[in-house]
């Protein structure tokens, strides 16, 4: 972040960054699946704040509505419904898994370091912000003018996936469940 950014935004950024990192650690390290899910919600909300700082209010709102809202409600719902008591004492990882974890972690870290060094040393937040890529108007223009065909194709893909999910659910519903009250 460049220094000419407003001090108020800097404060917001630092506080949110700390919360985001702590929440991310909780997602990975905490033993309780409900705490993991709640920490993930906090982390996703922090991402929305970062989008706001980058002058991308549309992305921020969508981030909260879709990820922190809709998707995580389903996650939390399923976790609460299953009431995963067993997960509080998970089996310890084997030796192979540990070695592979260290290896994968080191690989990802070096990838991140490489990517950051290749990019410019000062992260030009102001430039990104001033370009105004994140407003509704810009996003709408990209989606409905410049990339209309690919956008419509993606929606067809989603429709196919939805119909597929329904067909699979129907196949199981063929055998009547005595627990299910007839509507």
């Amino acid at each position: 972040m460049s220094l000419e950014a407003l001090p108020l935004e800097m404060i917001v950024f630092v506080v949110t960054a700390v919360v985001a990192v702590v929440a991310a650690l909780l997602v990975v390290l905490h033993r309780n699946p409900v705490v993991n899910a709640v920490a993930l919600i906090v982390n996703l909300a922090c991402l929305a704040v970062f989008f706001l700082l980058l002058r991308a209010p549309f992305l921020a709102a969508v981030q909260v509505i879709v990820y922190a809202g809709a998707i995580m409600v389903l996650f939390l719902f399923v976790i609460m419904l299953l009431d995963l008591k067993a997960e509080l004492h998970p089996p310890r990882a084997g030796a192979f898994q540990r070695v592979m974890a260290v290896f994968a972690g080191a690989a990802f870290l070096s990838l991140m370091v490489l990517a950051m060094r290749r990019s410019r040393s000062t992260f030009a937040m102001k430039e990104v912000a001033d370009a105004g890529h994140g407003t509704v108007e810009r996003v709408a223009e990209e989606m409905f003018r410049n990339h209309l065909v690919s956008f419509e194709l993606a929606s067809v893909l989603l429709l196919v996936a939805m119909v597929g999910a329904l067909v699979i659910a129907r196949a199981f519903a063929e055998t009547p469940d005595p627990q299910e009250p007839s509507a």
Partner: protein
Amino acid sequence: MTAVLIEAGVKVAVFLVLLLTVVAYMVWVERKVSAAMQDRPGPNRVGPMGLLQPLADGLKFLFKEDIVPANAHKPLYLLAPVLTLAAALAGFAVIPFGSSIEIGGRNISLAIADVNMGILYVLALGSLNVYGLMIAGWASGSKYSLMGGLRAGAQVISYELSMGVSLIGVLMVTGSLRLSEVVQLQAGGFWHWNLVTQPIAGLVFFVACFAETNRLPFDLPEAESELVAGYHTEYSSMKFAMFFMAEYAHMVTVSALMAALFLGGWHLPFFDLQQAGWSVTAIGLTHMAVFAAKIAFLLVLFVWVRWTLPRFRYDQLMDLGWKVLFPLALANLVYVGIGIAMGLPWLGGFTR
């Protein structure tokens, strides 16, 4: 910069005090209206007509013993009421209460933050609001609470969608996500109000509001006849009071939204004040009074419905959400789309 911050701070303080006062007195209104409907006096001991009852209730909540159940997951148990109340109060920030007033030559708009993402902001907060209830239900470590929390989750998923889709019609006509622009376009008489031009959208949104605020006939997360008190069974003292306040604050917020989105916001039904030649401040204050009257009407409607209708059964609630409200919202979308394409004058909106 500092002037902007001070202005925002003062507005937040004023609106917060107003909102919390309304919340306190909504409890009184609810008790009085229910009493009137059941032919009994209602609260009448504390102060004239029981008007000091909210104060007595508040003191009582403060002095009650604060219990954390042994089975509770303490950090999340403490977080849940805070989250619920914060989400309910935060929605208030984008609501435009009137056009603007002038103080010392400064033009001050009567919304805390009239952001250009107003509608999306409200939907985002609505989707976060349910977490307070779900977390409260799980963290209490009680099966009644858990059932309440799960129902809250399922209910909100079902009704949020209809609510969002019903707003797309308004968005298409307005061409802006800014709430003050939605209100501006409904100027000039009630036949310009979105409720009149898009009655189905208004109906779907209003029904979804009942589900979002967990009010009867959609109060299944609470359902005191089967779940004791649902998600807040294990809460006592001020923590319970926070859930209570959140429900009423949420009611005020959705009423204000309904008024701004569908009932013409601060506009009078028959007369455009902008043509009266009054000063900016006089118009602004009148706008505020008109808006407040519309909110008050909707709030009483909320109370009225609660003491009139019985609670839906769970499968009826789901059927209504998915098989009735959602198709209706989609039908409204088609109607608005065709209407704009055909150039229907009342759906002209921003192309007008």
